[in-house]
């Protein structure tokens, strides 16, 4: 179904929506930015989030949400151009620079960020953080990967089971 606004968001002030984090902080952003999230886009197209209602996001805390919105606001103009075929090299380089700095953050924030990107279905953000995490762990040993991602160290039983598993089955490549 067509959206009530018919996608004509450029007449006068842009439409704003309110998002409410799990700790009840309210964020007001442009609908275009919030629509980078596939989940929110549906709600917004249905006319939700306007006025005093707000869209509750019980899985995202305020610190993570503000970070997510920082990404969305920066990427919204490019996304509005449909993958930005007419974007200049300068614009693309600027976005790339922003992305690199954006993920240069503490690991626990990265962790909440990728979960939020996944829940809100923001594909670009999810792949940006996934790439960052991949770069962080690709050269590490299995135990170092566990520690980097904050997994508890395996119990002796788990370790023995894993070793037995490896010894028993062996591996091949395909």
């Amino acid at each position: 179904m067509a959206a009530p606004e018919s996608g004509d968001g450029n007449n006068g002030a842009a439409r704003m929506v309110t998002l409410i984090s799990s700790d009840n902080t309210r964020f007001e952003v442009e609908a275009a930015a919030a629509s980078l999230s596939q989940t929110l886009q549906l709600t917004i197209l249905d006319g939700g989030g306007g006025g005093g209602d707000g869209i509750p996001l019980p899985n995202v805390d305020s610190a993570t949400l503000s970070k997510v919105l920082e990404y969305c606001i920066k990427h919204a103009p490019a996304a509005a151009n449909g993958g930005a075929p007419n974007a200049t090299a300068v614009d693309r380089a600027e976005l790339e620079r922003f992305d690199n700095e954006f993920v240069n953050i503490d690991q626990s924030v990265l962790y909440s960020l990728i979960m939020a990107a996944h829940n809100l279905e923001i594909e670009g953000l999810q792949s940006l953080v996934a790439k960052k995490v991949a770069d962080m762990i690709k050269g590490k040993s299995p135990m170092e990967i566990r520690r980097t991602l904050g997994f508890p160290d395996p119990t002796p039983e788990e370790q023995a089971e894993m070793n037995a598993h490896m010894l028993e089955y062996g591996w091949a490549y395909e």
Partner: protein
Amino acid sequence: MARRRPALLDELVEEIVLRFPADDPASLVRAALVCKSWCRLISSPRFRRRFREFHRSAPMLGFLLDLRNNDDKSYIARFVPTSSSCPTHADRRGFALDARHGRVLLYTARETDHPVLPRYDFVIWNPINDQVQELPAFNWYRHSKAPWKAAVLCADTAAGTCDHLACHNEPFLVVFVGILIDFVFVHVYSSETRTWSRVITDGTVGPPNCWVSMTGPSVLAESALHFAIDGGRRILSYDISKRSLSVSNTPWNHRMGKVDIITGEDGRLGVAGVEGYKLLLWSSCAISPDNNDNNVRIWKVGRIIELDMMLSIDIGVPMTTFHVVGFAEGANTIFICGSDGIYAVALESGHVRKAHERTHFFGIVPYVSFCIPVENGRRIFRYDVSMGVMVVLTALWKNTRMGNIGPIIDKDGGL
């Protein structure tokens, strides 16, 4: 939501591990050893498919170096890894001729077999899963004036229906091109019919007694297989759709030693050669037939890579010369040989790195393929708790190499 940090969802683990570099297969193995759920995920067919689709083109895993065992005059193809993986059997008896779409074509020479009607024995080897397939013996002339070349490719290449991401278990073709005086013969083996068939028996290559070396793999471009003949002065092309032959010129000149064919700009045929310390890359920009049924190609220099600027080696020795020895199709890497070893020049990044110390060998056949761990009953390597996978991979590779054939090749590569 739980207070403590919840485990990463499987979908997110998949998204992260998908982004591991394709030319570092050991990183996938290490990730698979993080815990059982990661192990299940990474060794699933779904992950393998997604990994190939995500990376789109296969990485170069290494190259085969053709060496000769001086004791019994047999050839050995040695897999030299350029990535963090290596097959269980790094050395294979035979002469590596070509590699494409996950397979290596080996010629297992039998000098002593039938003196009158010599046999050509070929073997297809998949270094990743170590499967070997012998082709039925094939009879053709053996004579110093009857040189030949051979290539392997996925059977669906001509139809264009395969993306070649995972066709290593699918049907394949071997194309044999033999030259007798000035006639060209093309024989094609099909893995589906398990037979050789004569496709062309009366092609011509112009002036007789052209010089063809068995070494120098083929290049697949412009829907044809191309072979360098006459030391790179001419190109013999076999169109795999039309099943027709043509011969064309290269931009060779006397200042270069050997030139090699490559994939040039826009997937067209290219040529690489070294003049002094300059690596010149030509692209074929136009092609027109001449009066003798040959094709005249117009070449233009697309790019020049200054080797003395790129190499970190000491090339102060005035005698240092470079020549092109191989090209990794799909991975866009040119191999050049200098006076102190083999260098790999990655064309996209312009990055040059030393690939091997050896300077005496018979040929180089780069191997480009995906290498993704699968869990099965066949033990290719073992996980050692105290050491870590990389070490085990390397150690096992070394042991296998020594145990199999042993260090019997002298440092000059024979002869």
